[in-house]
């Protein structure tokens, strides 16, 4: 008992108070928890912690999914653009285009082929420009 307690506590010499304090002290262990309380508490704690873990897992998965969407959307666009850029016409298609230009414009097949390649290069340059603009954004 510290100084404050000796000053503030009731007269420690009073035999009645001593007896009452003793009686109260002795009665401290009179009440006991019911037999099912321990398993009940442990079970409730397990449930609570399990629910917390499930909530954390779910929110982690949601976050990961959100991040995936965030990263995947521009990536998909990038991949699509790259695919589009890499899809060049075949030699047969080039030949057909050259023939068309030749017939439409009344020029020889060689000039038709030159015209077809010129347009193809313009188209590729245009795609490349758009791709660079997207990447910069």
């Amino acid at each position: 008992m510290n100084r404050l307690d000796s000053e503030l506590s009731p007269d420690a010499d009073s035999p009645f108070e001593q007896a009452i304090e003793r009686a109260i002290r002795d009665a401290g262990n009179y009440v006991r928890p019911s037999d099912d309380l321990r398993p009940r508490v442990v079970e409730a704690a397990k449930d609570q912690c399990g629910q917390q873990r499930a909530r954390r897992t779910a929110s982690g998965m949601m976050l990961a999914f959100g991040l995936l969407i965030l990263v995947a959307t521009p990536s998909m666009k990038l991949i699509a653009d790259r695919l589009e850029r890499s899809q060049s016409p075949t030699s047969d298609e080039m030949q057909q285009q050259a023939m068309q230009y030749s017939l439409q414009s009344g020029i020889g097949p060689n000039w038709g082929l030159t015209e077809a390649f010129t347009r193809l290069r313009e188209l590729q340059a245009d795609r490349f420009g758009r791709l660079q603009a997207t990447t910069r954004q």
Partner: protein
Amino acid sequence: MTPPETFFERVRQCAERIAESREAALSGLYDLTASRLLRYATTITRNQHDAEDALQMTLVKVASERTLLLRAEKPWPYLLKMVRNESLIIMRRKKRWSFLGNLSDLLTQTNVDEREIEETHREVWKALRTLPTQQSEVVVLKIWEEMTFAQIGEMLDVSPATAASRYRYGLEKLESKIRVGKTEVNR
């Protein structure tokens, strides 16, 4: 009874174990503190079933927020404060402030050859229930938990002097109610 310092240290150790392994270590804390927390909660709720609910809610909170107890400067008084808050919440919800004249809700432990002593214990518990909660909780913290008035004051957010006067008034009232105490003294 375990010396308070040793008990405080054991509660801290349990808090450390809970911080490490969560609900798996809760049984240790239960075994160490349940009886003491329950008797304090019963003093506030005046009903053992409600006190057990308060105790359960407290320990579940401790397990679900694993560092809660470890972060507390003094884990044992903090745990007592937690069970007190839960008990008061239950009391507010149930509005069962009326005095229970009997002790039928109490689960007790007495050996067969201690029937006389049991009578005294019943007198004490009955008398404690007639006190206002503010006084009875100071009495039990002082006597059962062996706390100083400064510690009680800190826990209940009152001054040590207020805690001491509540104790004094409480004990005065108990004097007139616990007949056995006087009989013992007169003997």
